[in-house]
């Protein structure tokens, strides 16, 4: 599983870049259709690298919880 940013909603605040414990996001340089610089999901393999229980790969969901615009969704590989 990895996060996907919906650029129709993203306002480029970069909080996802800040809070992700695995540094999956990086600040972006491309402008979206709404005029914001939305971050880019660069290291998607690091997501669900986060395992609370040994051997089980689950989402921490902190980017989803923090994103003020509800612009993040998860997709399966």
């Amino acid at each position: 599983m990895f996060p996907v940013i919906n650029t129709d909603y993203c306002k480029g605040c970069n909080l996802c870049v800040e809070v992700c414990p695995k540094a999956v996001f990086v600040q972006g340089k491309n402008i979206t259709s709404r005029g914001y610089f939305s971050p880019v999901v660069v290291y998607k393999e690091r997501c669900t690298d986060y395992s609370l229980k040994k051997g089980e790969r689950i989402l921490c969901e902190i980017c989803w919880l923090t994103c003020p615009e509800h612009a993040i969704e998860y997709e399966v590989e």
Partner: protein
Amino acid sequence: MEFFEFYRKDRWPHQFCPGCGLGTIMNTMYKAFNDLKMDINKTVFVSGIGCTGRVPGYINADSVHTTHGRALAFATGIKLARPDLNVIVISGDGDLFAIGGNHIIHAARRNIDIKVIAVNNATYGLTGGQLAPTTPYNMITTTSPYGNREYPFALADLVAAAGANYVARWTTAHPNQLVNSLKQAFTTRGFSFVEVVSQCPVNFGRRNKMGDPVFHLRWIKEHAIPISKVSFDVKTPYEILDLNTKGIYIIGELVRRNRPVYGEALSEEEEESVPME
């Protein structure tokens, strides 16, 4: 319940600034509500004036956006007329504690069964960033250009002293703990109060060299001390006010108790009082 069953999709994206803590709080409210499987048709959201006051307008439920500071008074009327409804008040620090200070301490005193989510961004955000009763000492706002000369409230401690049954303080940098605290608040009988310290980068952070939402969130995270790491007894107000003045927040669950709730019989003897004719 899907996210866009809880929130009105025809009003999305919302009007809040990029990086506003309210968006995070909206996510946590949805998660807490959904995990508890609460009935949205039996819930009424009441708010006052301010950016936080606009949040219930985005929720796909009965929402009452009232006059400045009086959210708790309206909520009292709604709850007493329909005690079976869940009444949740979502409002800001200026609305609830400056103009509405009287109403919140009385609601806490009565211990009426209302849940309050107070979003504390240390300023009056919607009107442009004026100083609020929660602005830390010496910080710059539009009405304190040379530094705030006033000393701030410690909101959660004030409500705890007035008599609430559940009081907690968290920040938007602690969303998971906030979700659990909201779940606890929604299921506690009596007055439940959760204060959320939130970032306002555009109207507060920007004037204090924290204009980037990331910097303001970092500032909040650095200034939040969990209650377990505090060396003094949290019940003494003096040290808390000193810390508050510098903008340091003690986060955690401050109070969890079981005082009698307004309108519920204390015991069988008290139920049989005979009113005057």
